[in-house]
């Protein structure tokens, strides 16, 4: 469906927050679900791009995505401005489970993987714990206003120590996590592998939001497969993007 862009701001070098007016259908989006988006730019680039829902503001009837400019599609997206038209398909895929006990919930992100976790934090309510990691402060700093608004209990961690603790989100998680916790993670593949290893070692349960190149986002093309624990291929778009970390074969996907 066609929607109108409300704002498209660069919030850190190469990171953008894009907000658009949303229909009732789009506002039904749950944390961890995604949208397939393209601009009104003809046949090149051809495919839509998948983006997690970052904020879903029902009162303003707007949805916000967070993205990093990594290629042609996101570069073109970054040049759009308020009033421009976007073509949005969604909400799609399976989001995070509904959590009733936020006390033992721990959110762990790496870089732009923060997007679905802010959405999750918003739905669970204030006081939730989040470890937000990145290489440098630019990879995490832009969430500060959302963290404040949503009263998230955040720990920043950067590899170069430019913001928060020095280290990685997994190294900080290792110090904090207990076997009774449920971890929800999104970030680079290597980080998710570490989360899986740690979940086996310590015994906590974990859900991860996965990323893969997608042709359609709705199960038509079979482009976005990941290996399941029995070696069968699962579709990130239909079976995921959120998986129980033990559902996937992390060796096969490496």
């Amino acid at each position, binding site marked *: 469906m066609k929607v109108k862009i409300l704002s498209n701001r660069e919030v850190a070098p190469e990171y953008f927050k894009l907000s658009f007016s949303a229909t009732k259908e789009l506002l039904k989006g749950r944390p961890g679900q995604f949208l397939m988006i393209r601009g009104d730019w003809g046949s090149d680039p*051809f495919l839509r791009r998948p983006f997690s829902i970052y904020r879903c503001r029902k009162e303003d009837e707007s949805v916000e995505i967070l993205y990093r400019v990594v290629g042609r599609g996101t570069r073109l997206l970054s040049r759009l401005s308020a009033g421009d038209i976007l073509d949005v398909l969604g909400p799609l895929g399976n989001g995070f489970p509904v959590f009733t006990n936020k006390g033992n919930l721990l959110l762990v992100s790496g870089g732009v993987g923060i997007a679905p976790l802010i959405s999750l934090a918003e739905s669970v309510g204030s006081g939730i714990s989040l470890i937000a990691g990145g290489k440098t402060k630019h990879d995490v700093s832009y969430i500060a206003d959302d963290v404040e608004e949503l009263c998230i209990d955040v720990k920043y961690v950067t590899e170069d120590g430019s913001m928060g603790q020095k280290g990685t989100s997994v190294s900080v998680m290792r110090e904090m996590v207990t076997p009774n916790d449920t971890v929800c993670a999104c970030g680079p593949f290597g980080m998710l592998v570490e989360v899986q290893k740690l979940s086996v070692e310590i015994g906590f349960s974990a859900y991860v939001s996965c990323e893969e190149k997608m042709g359609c986002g*709705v199960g*038509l093309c079979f482009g976005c497969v990941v290996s399941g624990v029995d070696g069968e291929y699962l579709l990130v778009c239909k079976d995921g993007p959120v998986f129980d970390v033990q559902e996937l074969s992390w060796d096969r996907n490496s």
Partner: protein
Amino acid sequence: MIGVKFSNPVFSSSGTSGYGLELSPYIALGDIGAIVTKGISAKPKQGTPQPRIVETASGMLNSIGLQNIGARKLIDNVLPKLEDTDTKVIVNVFGDNLDGYIEVGRMFLNEDRVDALEVNLSCPNVKEGGIAFGRDPELAAEVISAVIDASKKPVIAKLTPNITDISPIAKAVEKAGASAISVINCLVGMAIDVENRRPYFKNITAGLSGPAIKPVALRVVWETAKAVDIPVLGIGGISTGRDALEFIMAGATAVQVGIANLINPGTISDVVEEISDFCTENKISDLKEIRGII
């Protein structure tokens, strides 16, 4: 066409519409002339590992490797769910060798929900079967005639454009009893990861589709329609009614919408409507009036 009454000449193409049901949240299946399923083999097939997709200028390369649930699961789990829909069902089939084609053909012998089989003689992404059969007129004819015998269904031959001259192979499958010919399957292409100095895909080559291939597809449809008397189903980068009309003017009796479904799973409705509007505006009462006029 081919002894089946289709409600309209716009079909979904194999590999871009799952097993058909996946389109149903976005389009009334009855609005689709026919669903052509993802390629099906007698036994399930795993397909290729990642990476499977790379975007190109106005198109994409894919290397899915014919991943599919196998004929048994399609028959038991998918066909019953299509029972109450008005669309026609064409199952795209393939085998690793002649016996594989016969085996999968035979599995649809008593499946009345299946209106026709489309035999894939053209997949560029697998070592066995597929394209090897589509480049040799004798082998192609042998496969087509064997699948007709095994399935007793109308059989459509899906041919490859990766060949110097399509005429000998088109004539061979027509002689072997094919009810129609689908052209084109993907063009063979490749992409290179410059930073790592390696081919992007594990199989090195992959199948190119999308608006980028439309001019080539149109030329091959035109050549095929000139070479044979059986209907030609035009495929290749169709995303609008005007695209479809170009194929019809080049000689196609029906068209298949491919990766445009990936961008907009409701594309087929738009294409049908645009063709209909064009016919009304230009006082065309039957597409026959413009078919093959080039």
